[in-house]
């Protein structure tokens, strides 16, 4: 009996020491300790993040979060982070990881740490059916729209500035919904959109007057999971997780399910390794 009491005191003491010395625990320990993985996801970016017909979060990024939580043995908590909220949410540790289709640019990597790419986007030109714009090059001198603060926008603006055509103009809308509405009403002659979303949206029958014209010749838009710059252990674990998702075929499965394509793109650029 005495031994039991002594042992329990020792246990309590050890627990106390552990709780006052958080420096020992890293981000992974914290996630496992609290039993939840909190993911920042953009829910206005279908099919990666959206709300389904019962208005619950769904999409490629949401499923990816759930898989990650399962691999950690914890519950997934999807936190909606609109575009200007993604980084503050991460920095404040209101979310543990950001699975929000963020393109992994060098500029951004000065602020957050990126894993290896977990999905890749291709962009297409979308116009009204009777438009005479047939290819990406035809966009020279036309009015084009996209979403403000996105990577495709930056890619497009590079071409736009090179063309330097006084007749051309560019509008960056608040979100995808606005850009699609704008092209279908003829406010802009074409928009650039992700191929997956465009296919899904046009198949839904909501925009019967729109059509996908051609691919946009942008460099491959690889997107990564982001964690805080200092969370080294989590970054290493997440990298391995992304690799594991591909090895197990889960990546291909999710891609086919949400991006409605049987061609699952490679997550590397030829002649390089990550």
């Amino acid at each position, binding site marked *: 009996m005495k031994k039991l009491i002594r042992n329990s005191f020792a246990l309590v003491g050890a627990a106390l020491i552990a709780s006052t010395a958080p420096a020992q625990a890293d981000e992974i320990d914290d996630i496992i300790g609290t039993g939840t993985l909190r993911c920042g996801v953009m829910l206005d970016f279908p099919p990666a993040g959206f709300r389904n017909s019962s208005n619950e979060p769904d999409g490629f990024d949401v499923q990816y979060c759930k898989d990650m939580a399962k691999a950690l043995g914890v519950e997934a908590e999807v936190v909606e982070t609109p575009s*200007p909220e993604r980084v503050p949410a991460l920095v404040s540790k209101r979310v543990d990881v950001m699975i929000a289709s963020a393109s992994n640019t060098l500029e951004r990597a000065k602020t957050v740490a990126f894993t290896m790419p977990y999905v890749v986007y291709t962009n297409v030109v979308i116009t009204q059916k009777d438009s005479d714009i047939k290819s990406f090059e035809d966009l020279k001198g036309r009015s084009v729209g996209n979403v*403000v*603060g996105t990577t495709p926008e930056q890619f497009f603006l590079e071409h736009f500035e090179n063309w330097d055509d006084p007749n051309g103009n560019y509008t960056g*809308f608040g979100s995808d919904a606005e850009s699609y509405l704008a092209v279908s009403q003829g406010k802009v002659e074409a928009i650039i959109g992700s191929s997956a979303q465009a296919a899904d949206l046009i198949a839904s029958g909501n925009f019967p007057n729109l059509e996908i014209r051609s691919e946009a010749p942008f460099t491959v838009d690889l997107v990564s999971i982001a964690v805080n710059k200092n969370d080294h252990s989590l970054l290493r674990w997440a990298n391995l997780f992304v690799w594991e998702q591909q090895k197990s075929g889960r990546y291909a499965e999710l891609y086919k399910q949400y991006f409605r394509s049987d061609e699952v793109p490679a997550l590397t650029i030829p002649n390089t390794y990550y």
Partner: protein
Amino acid sequence: MFGYSFHWRTVWQEIPQLAEGAIVTLQIAVFSMLIGITLAVLLAVARRNEGSIASRLASVWIEVARNTPCLLQIYLAYFGLGALGINISSYAAVLGAIAFNNAGYLAEILRGGFNSISQTQYAAAHSLGMNSFRVYSYVVLPQVFRVTFRPIMNQSMWALLNTSLGMVIGLKELTGATQFAQSRSFRTFEFFLVAAAMYYVIAKIILGLAALVQWRFLKGGR
């Protein structure tokens, strides 16, 4: 507490873009006030004729402008008109919607001003042989603007704040330019702090312009 290091260099490089946005913001705030005041005078005068069709239309305008969010008004000016086949630029839509909003609020403000002017003044002016237009422009309105100057100033601050909603429909005003710049480098805090400072300066410029107007045209009285 601050485990975050600030990167200001990134922000300085983008200052020209932000400044361009700031100019659009200032333009819309000022123009929407000028259009708003003109419309508000018409609405307030129309409303004085109680029971007439013009008065009822003015009432509907005022109530809708005052009781629905400005963001909604902007959205409807752009996409709502678009659905009817009327396409205007995002600049025109934001300017028009904020002017519509201003007019509603300003008409209410002016109504109070009109009420403060005694009926004998109208009668006196008419008896001097002035027509209604002259009575309003030389006798009534200068006094109305004098008593309502402060609330009108407050409204011009609201107009400035409302311009930040233009981003949604693709207008590259200061908030839109900030959003564009911050998503490139993810330095959210730094960029929004600089934007806040710029808004502050714009507010001061508008107040300065107003003080100038007051000094030049509304001298005297109280």
